[in-house]
C-alpha cells in the first residue's frame, strides 16, 4: 500500500480554476476600463514621458464607452476565437463588458463584486475573496486614480515609447499569478489605450483592440 509511484493519480495541469478565470475576467475589464478612462485624459506632455506622467493622464470622466474586438490565440486550436462587444466605464468603480459575438454575455464589476450573466445563468464572485483578485482590482483602482505607488506594488511596470505611441508592460509580482500570466502589454496613443494584450506563460495570448466611442450627449 505504500508504493509511492503506484499512488500517483492522473495529474491535471490545473491551477486554481474558477478563481483564475474570474481574475482574468476582472483583469480584462479592469484594463479595458483603464483604457477607456485613459482615452478621456489630457495628453499634454511638457515633461519627459514617464510613468508619473502616464498615470496623471490616465484619468477619465464620469462615463466612457468603447467597442472592443478580442482575438484569442490558443495552442490547442487551429484557428483563433474572436469576440466583439462594448465596454462601459462609470466612475468611480463600475465596469461593464458586454459581449455581442459569438455568444451574448455580460460581465460587470461593481463595488467589489463581479457579476457574470450568460445564457447559462448569473454568477457572482467577490473580488476580495482572493488575494489575486484583490491585486487586480487594486490595479484598476490605482490606474483610474493615477495611484502609481499601488500600481507598481502589484506589477513591475515598464513604460516604453513616446506620449503619442507608448507601451506599458505590466508583469505580475504575485507568484501564483505570474505562474500563468507572463506579461500584460497595454498600448496607447496619447491618452487613449488602443490595445491590451495578455501573454500567458504557455504562449497562449489574447489581444483586445479598443476603439473609443464618441461621448453620448448627457
Amino acid at each position: 500500500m505504500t508504493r509511492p509511484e503506484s499512488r500517483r493519480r492522473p495529474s491535471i495541469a490545473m491551477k486554481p480554476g474558477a478563481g483564475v478565470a474570474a481574475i482574468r475576467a476582472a483583469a480584462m475589464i479592469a484594463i479595458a476600463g483603464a483604457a477607456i478612462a485613459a482615452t478621456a485624459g489630457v495628453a499634454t506632455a511638457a515633461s519627459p514621458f514617464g510613468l508619473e506622467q502616464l498615470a496623471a493622464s490616465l484619468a477619465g470622466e464620469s462615463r466612457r464607452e468603447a467597442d472592443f474586438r478580442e482575438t484569442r490565440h490558443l495552442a490547442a486550436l487551429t484557428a483563433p476565437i474572436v469576440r466583439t462587444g462594448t465596454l462601459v466605464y462609470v466612475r468611480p468603480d463600475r465596469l461593464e463588458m458586454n459581449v455581442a459575438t459569438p455568444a451574448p454575455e455580460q460581465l460587470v464589476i461593481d463595488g467589489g463584486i463581479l457579476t457574470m450573466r450568460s445564457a447559462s445563468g448569473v454568477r457572482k464572485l467577490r473580488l476580495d475573496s482572493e488575494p489575486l483578485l484583490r491585486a487586480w482590482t487594486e490595479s484598476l483602482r490605482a490606474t483610474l486614480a493615477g495611484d502609481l505607488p499601488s500600481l507598481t506594488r502589484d506589477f513591475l511596470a515598464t513604460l516604453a515609447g513616446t506620449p503619442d505611441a507608448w507601451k506599458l508592460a505590466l508583469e505580475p509580482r504575485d507568484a501564483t499569478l505570474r505562474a500563468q500570466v507572463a506579461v500584460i502589454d497595454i498600448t496607447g496613443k496619447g491618452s487613449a489605450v488602443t490595445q491590451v494584450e495578455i501573454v500567458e506563460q504557455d504562449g497562449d495570448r489574447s489581444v483586445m483592440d479598443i476603439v473609443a466611442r464618441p461621448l453620448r450627449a448627457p
Partner: protein
Amino acid sequence: MTPRARALLLPAIALLAGAIYLWSSMRVDRDFAAFLPHGADATQRLVMQQLRDSPAARLVLIRLRGADPQTLAATSEALREALAADGHFDYVTNGSLAGALRDLPSLAAARYVLSPDAASHMSVEGLHSALQRRLAALSGSMGMLEKRFLASDPTAETEALIASLQAGGAPRREAGVWFDAQGSSAMLVARTRAAASDQAAQQAAMQALDAALQRVRTQPGIAADYSSAGFLGVRSALLIAHDAARVSWMAVAGIVVMLLFAYRSPSVVLLCATPALAGLVAGLCVLTAMFGSVHAITLAFGTTLIGEAVDYPSYVLTRLSAGRSIADVQAVVRRPLLLAVLTTACGAFAFLGSGVDGLIELGVLTSCGIVVAGALAWWLVPRLVPPGWHFAAFAMPGSVALGPAGAWPAVGAAPRALAAIAVTLVLVVSAAGKPAWNDDPARMSPLPADAIALDRVLREATGAPDVSRFALVRGSSREQVLQAVEQMQPVLDAAIAAQHLGGYDSVGRYLPSEATQRTRRDALPDDTTLQHRLSLALPGLPFRAEAFAPFLRDVALARSAAPLDPAAFAGTGLGLRVASLLGSDPDGYWSVIPLRGVRDAQALADQVRATSAAATLIDLRQQTSAMFAQFRARTFAAIVAGASAIVLILAIGLRSLRAAAAAIAPSLLGATWTAAGVIAFGGGLSIFHLIALMLVLGIGVNYALFVQRAASRGDSLPELCVMLAVVSGTTCLAFGAMATSGIPVLRAIGLTVVAGTVATLAACALVFAPGAGSAPVPAAGRGS
C-alpha cells in the same frame, strides 16, 4: 479545654482534612452527558459518541444580520479570514472562492474514479459532443478557465463533480458568499479544533469567535449569532454551575433561618449543621477518591443531603424539652433514628444500579453522607448541646384544631382508610389515560427553548445536516461499509424522488468502494482505443489532436492507479467531510449518512432496513428516548430493590412485619399520590422523577418511624407536630430551592420531593392513630 471543645476537636480536624483533600483533588465536572446513560450496545455507544464528539458536533454555524448584503458579505469574508487564522478553528467556510479552490486539485486528481459515468463520455459520440461544448465555452468569458481544463479533461468530469457536490444543500449565494434562503443573513460554517465535549476548549473557541466578531463588525447594526453542539454544551454547563450554586446557597440560607427560628440558639444551629456538613464532605471525599471528579448536578444534590442530614440532630433536639435529659430522649429515638439512617442509605444505594454516571455519584454521595451524618449526630448531640438549653416548642399554626393539648384525635380506622382510598382514587382517575412515562430527552435539556430554536434555524440556513437524524452503516471493514453505503444511495435517491427526504450526504460521493473504483477504472478505454476514438471525434472541430496528450496520459494513469483512500483528501475540505462521514471505533467501521428534510421517517426507516442489514435509520431523539426508557426501567427495578431492602431493614429493626408494613405504608401512599399527580399534571414520569420518588420513600419512612413511635407511646401530638414541622421544613426548603432551578432535572426532583413530603405527612396522619390502625411496637425503649 472544655469537654464541649474537646468533642468538637476531632470532627473539626476530620472536616478540615477532608476539606483540604477536596480542595486539592476534587474536580467539578459540568458535562451534562454525565446524566445521560451509557450506550448499552454498539449503536447506542456510537449515537452517544456522535452526539458528543462527532465532527458534526464540532461545527459552529454563524449568522450575520442587520446590514445590506454587500456589507454583510464583506463582514463574512473578514470573519472567514479571522477564523482561518485562529488556532481554535481548523476549518471555516462561507461559500467564497478561496475555500473551493483548496479542494479542486484533489477532486480533479480523483475524477475518473469519482465520476459515475466518465467512461461513457469517452465514446466517439461522447467525445465529439463534449468537444463541441468545450469550444462554445472557450468562446465565453470563462474561456481561459475552460482552457485549463481542455487539454487534460475535455469531457469536463471535474466540472460535473463540482456541480454534483454542490447540488442541493448548498446555501444561496449573495455577493459571492453564503446567505440564508431569504437573502437577509450571511451564513458561515466553522469547525472547532477541539472535540465538542472538551468544555474548556469549546469555551475558549467561543471567546475567540466573540472577539473575532467584535473585530470584523464594521457597523453597529450588524447582529451576529451562532450555535454549535459544543457551544450549547458549554452553555448548559454554565447554566448548571450557576444554578447549582444558587440552589445550594438558597437551601443553606433557608435552612439556617428556619433552624434559628426553631432553636433560637446559634450554637444549636451549628450543632445541627456540623453532622450534615461532615456527611457532605465525607461523601465528596469518597466520590473524589472513586471517580476523581464530581458532577455539578451531584453537588447540587449535596444540598438535599444537607436537608435530610440536618434533621438527625433535630429528632433528638425537638424532644429535649425542659425536664428531659438527653439520655432519656436518645433512648426513645435510638431505634427509629438508626432505622431512618439505614433505610435512607439503602434507598440511595439503589442508584448504583442505574447505569448513569451522575446517578451513581448521587447514590454514593447520599449513602456515605447519610451514614456519616447520622453517626456523628448521635455522637455529637449529647456532647455539644449547650448546658441548660431546652427546646421551647413554638405554637403550630392550626394546632388548636388538633384538640386539647396532647390528645390524639379519635378518628376511627374506617374513615381514615376511606379517606386514603378516596385520595388515591381521585389521583389515579385523573392520571388514567395519560402516558405514565415520558422519556423525551428534550424535557431534560437545561437549555432554553430559544437556544434550541436558533440552532435549528441556523442548521436549516446553512444546509448543515440535521444532527438528530441520520442513517448509520456498520461493518467489519472499510470496504464493507463503503459497499453498504453505495447500496443505500439509490434507495435514498428514490426517497428524495418520493418526497420522503430532502437530501443526504454520503461518503460514497467522495470515496467510492474499491469494488466500484475497480469497475469504473476497468470501464475506461485503453490508450490505443481512446486515441482512435479521439481521432474519429475531432473532424469538423478546430482542435489539434496533439493538444489532448494530457487527457490520454491521465486516463492511462487512472487505469493503473492504486485505489483511492481517505489520505487522498488530507488537508482539504473534502478530507474533513470524509472524516466526518466515515470512521472506526472498537466495534468496527461505521459511516454516517446525514439526512436533511426527513418527511416520512417511518417509510424511510422501512426502506433502509429492507435494503441492507448493515444499515439503520437513527433518530437521535428516539434513540435517546429509548435509552432513557431502558435506564428508567433499570432505575425502577433498582427502586423496587431499594424499597424491598428498606422493608427488610424495618422488619428486622422493628421485629414485626406488620410494623414494618405500617412504617412504609405512608411513604408508599405518598409516593403513589405524587406519581399519579406527576402523570396527571406533570406530563409523565421520567427517570429523574423516579429518583425523586425514591428520595420521598426514604424521607417518608423516617417520618413514619417517628410518628409510629409517638403514636404507639401516646406521645403529645403537638410535640410530634412541631418535630415534624422542623424536620419536614428543612427538607421542603432544600428541595423547594431545587424546585426554583431552571434546570429541568433539578426542578423535577425538587418539585416531586416537596409534593411527596407533604403527601407523606398527610398519609402519616391517615395511617397512624394511637392504639388503632398501627401495630404496637415491641417494648424496647418504652419507658426507659
